[in-house]
């Protein structure tokens, strides 16, 4: 049991680190998928531990959701490339707060 959970945790960490380290938005999306799948994996592990099918049912749900999410994400990436001609996430800083306060 612990070893499987540990496996899922390692998978989640790989995704998280990938998300933080990578600047290419496609790789960031991939990393998100890895994190999502690691979470889904925990459901399957828990389902097999308590001999219940619920975990697998949940997994299929998550799969569906992630499929939808990826399609939206990819569409956004296409638009992003269309507008900014780049896939670098750090290049998109338009939501930065530009407010400067006068020094008192």
């Amino acid at each position, binding site marked *: 049991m612990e070893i499987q959970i540990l496996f899922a945790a390692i998978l989640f960490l790989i995704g998280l680190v990938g998300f933080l380290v990578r600047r290419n938005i496609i790789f*960031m999306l991939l990393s998100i998928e890895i994190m999502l799948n690691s979470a889904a994996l925990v459901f399957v592990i828990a389902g097999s531990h308590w001999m219940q099918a619920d975990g697998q049912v949940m997994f299929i749900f998550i799969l569906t959701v992630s499929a939808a999410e990826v399609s939206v994400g990819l569409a956004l990436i296409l638009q992003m490339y269309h507008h900014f001609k780049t896939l670098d996430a750090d290049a998109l800083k338009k*939501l930065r*707060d530009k407010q400067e306060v006068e020094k008192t």
Partner: protein
Amino acid sequence: MTVIISLIPALPLLSFLIIALFGRLLPKKVVALLGVGSVSLSAIMTIISGIDLLSSPPAVGSYTATLYTWMSSGSFTASIAFMLDPLSLVFCFVITFVGALIHLYSVEFMSEDDGFARFFAYMNLFVGSMLILVLAENLLLLYLGWEGVGLCSYLLIGFWYKEPENGYAAQKAFIVTRIGDTAMILGLFLLFISFGTLDIQDLMQQASMKWVSGSPLAVISSLLLLGGALGKSAQLPLQTWLPDAMAGPSPVSALIHAATMVTAGVYLVTRTHVLFALAPVVMAIIAVIGALTLLIAGFSALAQTDLKRVLAYSTISQIGYMFLAMGIGAWSAGVFHFMIHAFFKALLFLAGGAVIHLLNDEHDIFKMGGLRKKMPVVFITFFIGAASLSALPLITAGFYSKDQILWFGWSSSISSHWLWVAGITGAFLTSIYTFRLVFITFFGEMRTEPHHKAGKLMSIPLVVLAVLSLTGGFIELPQNIGPIHLFSRLFDHVLPVVIAGGEGNSELVFQIISAIVSLGGVYIAYLLFYKKSSLAVRFRNSSMNSFFLSGWKFDRVYDFLFVKPAVWLSEIDKKDFVDLIYTSIAKVTEYFNFLFSKTQNGKLRWYVLFLTIGVAVILTIMISL
């Protein structure tokens, strides 16, 4: 009767509501029909009720239409009630009749303006408020109308709000009249404390019974009411707003700043004449203010180059005559001059507005000239208005109304001969500046070509007003010319008559003097501005000219005396201790905002890192609990 009287102010107000709410949806024709129609209907209602009032006068001398109780608190009640007596009838007649003509004129004048519906909404609101003012049975309702017309004046001066100067002019008019209005509301409080009522009839009755002539309370309360009247009627020292108020469209100047609203002060003082009669000092002050105002404004008008500003100073000057008349107890003469002045000054403003309109908004009279042949209707009507304003003898209405004031200025027992001298000098100035305007604008060579002709809707009101400016005087002839006194007969039971002094001077001598003076003024204007005497040019370049042009530098003085100190004081006040607390709270908040806003740097991965750290911390805490 109640219905008809209450319909007089209700119709324009109703039309205001409709235009204000649905004006954008309605086609221009409907808006024009509503705007003109409602005021015309009010005029008809006024005539119906006037005929009724005069043919079968009620026992008390006035009709009262009480609609409902407006407010009631303790012993104080104020009701929405209208009172029609000969005085308010004359004012109603002028407001609705001249108002309807001006509305008709505006249909063509404003036809290409984007704010057509807005214009008519404001104008109708103005007419409604003004009618409430003159019909009000108690001073509180009068004050409501008083503020209503002030608001409309503000809105209409700043009608073309895209030009910032117009907005400033509107604010100036509003703030300067506000000074007077504050005095007036204080006066109302004082009257209420003294008598416990604001009902005009009741108030006047109690005042004449309880206060002796010259008692301090009577003097103070009439002075406070006078303050309101001075502000509204643009008299010294609150006259500075009226020339700037010319920023509004010409029909507005004609209706509000010549014919009706600016004479609200005359109405107020005449309406409460019992109170003023109890304070002879205040009466003397009114007369002196009137005399000074008419001279100062007359001199200022000589130097103006903007057509409408000449007329504005002339309005101030003519209202000065009305105040002079009231100050010497010639109440009906003042009201008579108000009515005649409304005719010819509205005519002058409308004709002048037509000139300005047809020359593509050219205001400078030195860029006009020779327009006599290009716009005959406008020229003839303007000429008639000018003749009436300069009181050319016998044929014009202005002669009869001004002559009456001048005669009483000499003969009234409470007048001084100096007032007559001021009045006759003012008459001389009047005919010079008026015919200066006529000669420069309509004679000589043409400098700007008019782009089209005045249409029917603009010409009809001009002609009607021109006829009135000529014939309006025949209803009240001087004693020695004819036995017709229809106008003063109206006020037999309303206003006291003038008590003549002991001197047995012949009225004829004074009529001849004033006739010579007004014709002499025209001749001098002819020499100076038609023959183009070098004197006129030398005057234009003199420092006296710029002094008059600025209206005796009143604006400068007020700026120095009031505006600058007020700004200085508020600058100091900005840094006081109480403000320091509040500003420091704001500063601290701003500082924290500055700190936190640094974290919002737009970097996605940065956010994720903080999110992860946050989740880790929360999880650690939850597990360790």
